[in-house]
């Protein structure tokens, strides 16, 4: 197929045009606007599908498309400075596109159900379209700058959607928190871009890969100077760290994870799309894109630790949440932690696969939760109920939602044959593989496995509390209607839940053991196509302008084959394989353990959770307060630190500097005036000037007599003088 502005650009442009059009018409033609949004994303989905199928046909790991156009040209004088923008699609991008458009489309559909009764039904779709277009633009970006632009646009959409219910003050707080926290990461991201730009000359991915391949970063440092002291940080580390900060912010990693739970203030579909499936995953996507840089900067362990801490820590907080969306939010953080952990331990493919699988099942979980919440309408407060303690036994009333959610729970908890098992346990397996590299690698591995256990526990806890047992709020339960299948409420859930099976992503149900079975090999498509970018492969790479007809489709690419040895030596590959198998088995037990514990507590009710909380009350309080991190940030750093600094500076500026230094000049001047005035008044005026005046007064007295005011006297004087003058002339 050919790649033109119509086949590729439209993927981004369709939702964007929908956004533009809807901005204008949304007030009058709400239904039409919704239709436009949904059609646009469906169109994008079809185009993405087309690209995806093309990539599948080619089936080559190094197949990619790179089209550029000139965006900025600052050349002038003898200076040259050109910034190009473009589209870069490789296998990872094609999969990402399909995932984003697919999930987004389904969420659009679900939103027509969920948001229908909202006063700002249309506006929600406006934001959704903008967000989708930004996300697609990000996926299509060929360079970090445009990546950053779309990244920030998504941040803006996230901000707007979190603050969607602007009547609530908490929504405002949450939206600021989300935007500002991610922006901390963004600022570092921008710094990373600048650092790369300073050596590479631009920030196109391909150029960066090539630069790394040419060992361009070796020996380069970022020189931070403080009053003459120069600290040289290796540039790759500096840039990689800075860009990873972007990931930390966007993907809610420790220590910037605080915003994501609060982001649940937004409507549930937006939580599903933005704060579960796509935007938060974009952070991971960035790190995946910049994986060579991370490697070059030796950041693996750091990344792994961050990911591990996030995965485990978030899971612990999720244990005690009672709000169904909060549980899902923490589980999202936790799962993102797994992805980052995957990047850290070098499990590039699995991290990306987990990104995709997580997007599918977490979107489905959120939508299911949304479906539940929407059904539970409190007639006293006229609000929807999100608290799990008031649910229970919903299985009978909401069978479709229940089954969709059940599949997804199985997927996220890593039940065998489900997608979560395939992706997450590969990450954990790779973490285990790293154990031989030193004791320090035990920490991320343990955190990862521990998190997996907790995940299984809290997810099933959520399921049991929600769907099983007796309804705890009888009135609420009686008021809700029994669910009938509806296309926009249940169909998206079911479609998504279909894709929670591991077989879609992997040739085996386990993804591990039977990879070597002949004939099934090529079905390991994911692992075959998505491989670490080989930085030496980009040396002769050329960008193509849009105008040029793409001949790449005519080129013959060698079809890739699954490399079960992961490109390692045989002995090493053997070891890795063994570790993977052991890891998979451990994972299954961990899943079962978590499930069992949840059943003991909430299904069979053998164990009383209350006893556990009182036994570990210190930890319980810590978990309730989210490890006091919000308090640290808001109460101490911002309110005690930043705001006081601000007030002090503002006081310094206006109260001290302006009042005394600037206006003081005026004071000094006025003293000078006073001295001058005294001199002027006393010496000059009184003595010199008035003295002159006094002498004039004497003449005045004499001359006054002539000025009698009698006109005839004047006439007479005139005549007198005239006559006298003429007579003395003697003519």
């Amino acid at each position: 197929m050919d790649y033109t502005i119509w086949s590729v650009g439209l993927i981004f442009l369709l939702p964007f045009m929908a956004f533009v059009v809807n901005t204008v018409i949304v007030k009058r033609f709400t239904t039409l606007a919704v239709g436009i949004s949904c059609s646009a994303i469906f169109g994008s989905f079809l185009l993405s599908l087309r690209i995806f199928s093309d990539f599948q046909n080619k089936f080559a790991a190094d197949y990619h498309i790179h089209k550029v156009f000139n965006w900025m040209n600052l050349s002038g004088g003898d200076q040259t400075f050109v910034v190009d923008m473009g589209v870069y699609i490789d296998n990872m991008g094609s999969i990402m596109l399909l995932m984003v458009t697919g999930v987004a489309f389904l969420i659009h559909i679900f939103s027509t159900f969920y948001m229908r009764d909202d006063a700002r039904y249309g506006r929600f779709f406006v934001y959704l379209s903008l967000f989708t277009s930004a996300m697609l633009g990000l996926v299509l970006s060929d360079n970090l700058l445009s990546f950053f632009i779309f990244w920030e646009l998504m941040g803006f959409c996230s901000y707007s959607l979190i603050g969607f219910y602007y009547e609530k003050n908490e929504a405002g707080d949450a939206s600021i928190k989300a935007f500002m926290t991610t922006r901390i990461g963004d600022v570092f991201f921008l710094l990373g871009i600048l650092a790369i730009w300073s050596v590479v000359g631009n920030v196109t991915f391909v150029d960066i890969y090539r630069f790394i391949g040419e060992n361009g970063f070796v020996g380069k440092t970022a020189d931070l100077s403080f009053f003459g002291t120069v600290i040289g940080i290796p540039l790759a580390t500096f840039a990689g760290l800075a860009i990873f900060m972007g990931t930390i912010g966007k993907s809610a990693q420790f220590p910037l994870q605080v915003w994501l739970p609060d982001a649940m203030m937004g409507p549930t579909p937006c939580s599903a799309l933005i704060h579960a499936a796509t935007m938060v995953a974009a952070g991971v996507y960035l790190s995946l894109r910049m994986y060579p840089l991370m490697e070059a900067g030796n950041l693996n362990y750091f990344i792994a630790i961050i990911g591990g801490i996030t995965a485990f820590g978030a899971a612990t907080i999720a244990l005690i949440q009672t709000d169904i969306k909060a549980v899902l939010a923490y589980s999202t953080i936790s799962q993102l932690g797994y992805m980052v952990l995957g990047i850290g331990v070098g499990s590039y493919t699995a991290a990306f696969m987990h990104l995709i699988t997580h997007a599918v099942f977490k979107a489905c979980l959120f939508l299911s939760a949304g479906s539940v919440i929407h059904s539970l309408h409190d007639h006293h407060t006229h609000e929807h109920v999100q608290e799990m303690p008031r649910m229970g036994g919903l299985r009978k009333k909401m069978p479709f939602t229940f089954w969709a959610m059940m599949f997804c729970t199985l997927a996220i908890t890593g039940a065998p044959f489900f997608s979560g098992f395939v992706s997450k346990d590969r990450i954990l397996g790779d973490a285990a593989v790293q154990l031989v590299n030193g004791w320090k690698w035990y920490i991320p591995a343990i955190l990862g496995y521990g998190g997996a256990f907790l995940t299984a526990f809290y997810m099933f806890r959520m399921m049991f509390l929600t769907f099983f047992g007796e309804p705890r709020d009888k009135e609420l339960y009686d008021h809700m209607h029994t669910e009938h299948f509806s296309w926009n409420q249940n169909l998206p859930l079911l479609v998504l839940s279909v894709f929670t099976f591991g077989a879609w992503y992997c040739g085996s149900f386990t993804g591990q053991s039977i990879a070597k079975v002949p004939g099934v090999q090529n079905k390991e498509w994911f692992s075959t196509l998505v491989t670490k970018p080989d930085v030496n492969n980009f040396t002769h790479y050329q960008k193509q302008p849009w105008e040029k007809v793409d001949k790449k489709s005519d080129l013959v690419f060698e079809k890739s084959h699954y490399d079960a040895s992961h490109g390692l030596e045989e002995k090493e590959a053997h070891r890795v394989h063994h570790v993977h198998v052991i890891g998979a088995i451990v994972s299954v037990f961990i899943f079962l353990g978590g499930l069992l514990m949840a059943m003991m507590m909430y299904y069979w009710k053998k164990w009383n959770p209350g006893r556990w909380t009182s036994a570990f009350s210190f930890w319980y309080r810590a978990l309730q307060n989210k490890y006091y991190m919000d308090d640290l940030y808001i109460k101490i750093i911002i309110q005690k630190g930043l705001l006081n600094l601000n007030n002090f500076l503002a006081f310094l500026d206006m109260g001290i500097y302006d009042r005394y230094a600037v206006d003081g000049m005026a004071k000094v001047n006025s003293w000078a005036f006073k001295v001058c005035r005294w001199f002027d008044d006393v010496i000059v005026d009184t003595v010199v000037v008035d003295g002159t005046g006094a002498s004039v007064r004497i003449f005045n007295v004499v001359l006054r007599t002539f000025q009698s005011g009698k006109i005839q006297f004047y006439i007479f004087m005139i005549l007198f003088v005239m006559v006298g003058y003429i007579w003395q002339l003697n003519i």
Partner: protein
Amino acid sequence: MFDKLLFFSSFLLTISGAAMVLGSKDLVRACIALLACLFGVAGLYATLNADFLAATQLVVYAGGVVILMLFAIMLTGGSNNAVNRFGINKVPSMGDGKTLAFGILSGAVATLTIFKITKNVFIDYNLQEIPGYSSTVEQIGQLLVTNHVLAFEISSILLLGALIGAAVIARPRKS
């Protein structure tokens, strides 16, 4: 013969008018005398081949100035009751013998002075062939828009200023 007749009648009218202005104790009559005098002057202009001047004299004085004077007299309470309000140097409004004598004296001195300057003109001016009567209107018109156009324009502005100024000054104000 016509012009001699005209000259002497105008001469007499002028002289007697001027004398009456000086001699009359009644302000209105002085005004009438002034009108007569000015009418005489117009006649003199006519004999001087200054037909346009004559007509102008008539239009401006008879039609304008004298009526204005009369109006002013009426608006200021007539001629006789204009007394010195402050009572200092109580001289009657139209003067008494002393002022008259003083006026005549100073007038005579001034006139004599002028005469002293201009006596040469009286005595031996260069007698010329005096041309006959001819119309001066066209020539004056030409001069007014060529040589004297600036003065003409300025005088129009002066008149406008006098018009507005007079209106503004004489406007009664609320006290």
